[in-house]
């Protein structure tokens, strides 16, 4: 594997960015990842988080970790696909 510049998009804070712009920005960041890289994205809690997560799943990216912050949630996303649903 070639050298990657991980610092480029390590942590993206989308608190205060409203729906659907937050999801669009998140997907743009994820699309720039290389295989094996992940990015940590912070969203406000609530309906806009649910929409953003749905949108990340629908775009075919894989959330690998999620943690609760104060009134916000961080998700770590990589390039693998989410599971097919019956």
């Amino acid at each position, binding site marked *: 594997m070639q050298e990657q510049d991980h610092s480029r998009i390590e942590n993206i804070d989308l608190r205060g960015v409203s729906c659907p712009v937050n999801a669009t920005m998140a997907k743009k960041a994820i699309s720039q990842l290389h295989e094996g890289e992940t990015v940590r994205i912070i969203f406000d*809690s*609530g309906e806009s*988080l*649910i929409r953003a*997560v*749905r949108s990340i*799943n629908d775009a075919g990216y*894989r*959330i*690998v*970790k*999620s*943690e*609760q912050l104060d009134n916000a*949630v961080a*998700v770590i996303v990589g390039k693998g696909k*989410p*599971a*097919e*649903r019956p």
Partner: protein
Amino acid sequence: MSEKTLDQAALKKIGMMRQVQPDYYVMRLKAVGGELTAPQLARIAEVAEKYGRGQVHLSTRQGVEIHYVHKDNLEAARNDLADAGVEMGACGPRVRSVVACPGSETCRLGVLDTKPLSREFDARYFKQEMPSKFKIAVTGCSSNCTKANENDIGVRGAIDPRWEADECTDCGLCVTVCPLGAIGRRDGDDGQGRDYHYAIDEAACINCTICTSLCPTAAWAVGRRGHTIFIGGTMGRKPRFASVLKKIVESEDEVYALVEASISWYRENGLKKERFGHTIDRVGLEKCKEEIFARAGSQQD
């Protein structure tokens, strides 16, 4: 309908209400589950033009009302509407038009096909006499667009999530996205051979599909799928949020049995002008539920 003194109670029964303006009436039309065809809409527009003031009023419960119809024209207007299959709604102490959201037929979040159910409720109960007004709503999922718990009877699409350890990557997403904070990660095995498991607080869970649709590995699977039944909701002067009768009812037959039992219980126990929810509060929710389940031959959750 041209005699001088119109029977107001009889008019209310067929969805016609006196206006502030003497001799003018509101015609409330029925739209089961909020559905009207294009030809029906065209006819409503024609009638509003011909007998009203060329406009309609949309009610909060999916009704279309034609205002400013003179009493001498009520019958002609009603006939014109009936020719296009537009029926009158209901007012007064009886079962009102059944409301519904679009449901799973077109809504991506839908769990329940709301329209057939609302048509069946309409066929069974519309206009039937009750102690007070009686509203039925069907809503396709926990987003609750039709506000099931503001109605005397509310039916809401529901699923019961089931955790499958083999699929779970322990990412924690379900804990952070559950809108009710109902999912927790617990130490110890739940019988599926892991040293942790994810569990749901049943009392808090609203049986939505957020965990089952967002888990990246589909580790939250849809277990049971069915209906949550609410009783005794009302807004109006003395609001009361509905009580859950049963969280998951899988079979439609059981839904109909529980609704029938609820309605017959209210008919026997409700005082005149007392809404279903207030009867429940007067008698006691637990007693009411026990009696309804006994009547329906069904078991509580």
